[in-house]
């Protein structure tokens, strides 16, 4: 095997572009807002903008990891936001004693008031997410409905279901142990980061150390030929949608724990779109094929680093959406075929060097 020049190997790496984007954002911060990188220790844990990026970005990273595999099979999962809402709504309803026999009184507000033990709440959240994912997967793989429509159904109906669960109310959680997922710290770092790391590691190992990743990529490249080579593409699709639902379930858990409440209308709103953006930032093509879970997670971090930088620089929250649009436009331009060809022409010396890269 011929060894590629180092520069080219770096440039061809899946992590290159997302890291460049992250670096550009940080350089921008360093120039315009030197205080951005200030870190401190408070009550034995770190705080600062970088920690905020990690902590706030955790749910999106999870959603993006789940979304990556779905997009790698050539599909898309639009129901992420709705699944987050369902999972969060279930958690809140299980915790909130106000729905039980007791009324909310002052001593409940300060104490660890819950209707259900914590492990069961977590399990129910994860199970709800997984079930939603399974439903999507069944629609896509067994009923052969195009992914966009199949998941659109849950996207439309999901928020309705979440509101049905919470009875249309914004529900507040008064249960301190539950806040640990979104606000706790282990060794000075937010708990949510450890959860992301755990899911990411498990998924990466599961994907790369077994043949699942290969199956996923082959389904994305050509579903029919995958079928003819004896791989059950139905089950591969079922698996990725279920996993995406599972990730969304975890994200819902963290988000509701982070904000101490569930507003079925707004929790996780727009997460499906941000997750897709993160995956595209991570270099996975919307048409399917090669993917990288870590790159997508970094893509999610780029989005949040961008968001928090904008806040720090003083862009009003109102203008943030427009700024995000500019970000997407830049990404679109960078990743388009045209730019790729241009880059290759710039970096590749003329001569018979073309051919397979690995």
């Amino acid at each position, binding site marked *: 095997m011929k060894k590629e020049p180092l520069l080219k190997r770096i440039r061809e790496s899946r992590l290159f572009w997302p890291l460049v984007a992250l670096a550009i954002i940080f350089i921008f911060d360093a120039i315009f807002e030197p205080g951005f990188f200030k870190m401190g220790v408070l009550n034995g844990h770190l705080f600062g903008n970088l920690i905020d990026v990690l902590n706030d970005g955790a749910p999106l990273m999870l959603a993006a990891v789940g979304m990556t595999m779905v997009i790698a099979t050539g599909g898309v999962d639009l129901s992420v936001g709705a699944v987050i809402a369902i999972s969060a709504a279930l958690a809140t309803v299980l915790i909130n004693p106000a729905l039980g026999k007791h009324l909310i009184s002052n001593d409940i507000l300060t104490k660890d008031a819950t209707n259900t033990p914590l492990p069961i709440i977590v399990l129910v959240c994860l199970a709800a997410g997984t079930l939603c994912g399974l439903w999507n997967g069944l629609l896509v793989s067994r009923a052969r409905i195009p992914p966009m429509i199949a998941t659109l159904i849950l996207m439309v109906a999901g928020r309705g279901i979440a509101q049905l669960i919470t009875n249309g109310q914004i529900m507040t959680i008064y249960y301190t142990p539950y806040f640990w997922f979104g606000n706790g710290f282990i060794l000075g770092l937010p708990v949510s980061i450890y959860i992301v790391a755990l899911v990411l590691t498990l998924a990466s190992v599961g994907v790369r150390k077994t043949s699942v990743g290969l199956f996923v990529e082959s389904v994305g490249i050509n579903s029919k030929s995958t079928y003819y080579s004896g791989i059950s593409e139905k089950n591969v699709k079922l698996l990725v949608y279920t996993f995406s639902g599972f990730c969304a379930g975890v994200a819902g858990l963290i988000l509701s724990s982070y904000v101490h409440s569930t507003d079925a209308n707004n929790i996780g709103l727009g997460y499906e779109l941000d997750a897709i953006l993160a995956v595209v930032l991570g270099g996975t093509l919307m048409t399917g094929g090669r993917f990288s879970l870590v790159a997508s997670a970094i893509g999610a971090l780029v989005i949040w680093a961008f968001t928090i930088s904008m806040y720090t620089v003083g862009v009003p929250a109102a203008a*943030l959406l427009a700024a995000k649009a500019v970000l997407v436009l830049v990404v679109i331009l960078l990743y388009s075929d045209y730019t790729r060809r241009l880059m290759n022409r710039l970096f590749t010396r003329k001569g018979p060097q073309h051919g397979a890269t690995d």
Partner: protein
Amino acid sequence: MAQRTKRFLFNNAPLLIVISIFVVAYFIAGRVYPAMQKPQVFFNLFINNASLLIVSIGMTLVILTGGIDLSVAAVLALTTVASAALLNKGVSPVIVMPLMLLMGIVFGFTLGSIIHFLKVQPFIVTLMGAYFARGMAYIINLNAVPIENIVYKTLGLTPIHIPFLTHSYVYIYAIVGPLLLLVAIYLSFFTRFGRTIYAIGNNEQSAVLMGLPVGRTKIMVYSFSSFCAALAGIVWSISLLSGYGQYAPSMELDAIAAVVIGGTLLTGGVGNVIGTLFGVLITGTIISILQFNGTLSSWWTRIVVGVLTLIFIGIQSLFYLRKKHS
């Protein structure tokens, strides 16, 4: 003759099913809630869903080419805010309305150009458009702005009485949708532009090989969709007499659902705008039923629309996928 009827029925089965479902749903609703038998309730469907109908018509053409436009709701919101801001500055509506429509066309033209020339998925591009339009709306004004303009008030509050029916009326802005529908029917069935849309939706590559102006048509379709969205925004601001960046949240999904219920395939090439009209009417009927019931909460709308979409997709796959495979 019998065979021709059979073929007609088979070819238009989804449309006929949609129409019959609408009629049956409306009939049952009328039996359960006698107040719904009043003709005015039927015309209210057009009044309440005026914007949705317009947006859905534009969306139908985009989906027929196999694309999707997620930016329509945001363009609608931007239009309401921008026109409110301009009108309150004292600009004449005669200038504001064409300006808004022009803005819509330019917006869609830009999106369509990016989609066509950079070969990016419509999904991502229009998503960017949605972010951009909402962001611009928030930059113009974060709050809801009332519109005091006399022309808008006249347009919004003048009822037109329906001939032969007493006590029934529609507002002026409710007629825009049906008129646009006629235009869209003409465009999609009787012009080269329309037939090219179907050709692209069925197979873009063959359309290119046939020498059809694929790029131009695609850009025009997205321009038309954004034009419809801007028109819907004008209608919306006339009907509510205000502009607000958070108007019409997730209306793009309602529009897509209406288009799907109306029998248009999301893969493109199959379906028509007439079905979309009934898709919108069915959605409207569901909302009316929930309102007449009174005890069901509004979130049932979402669930029912989701379930309906599912059912219609089932019907679609029965009719079309079988046909394609056989």
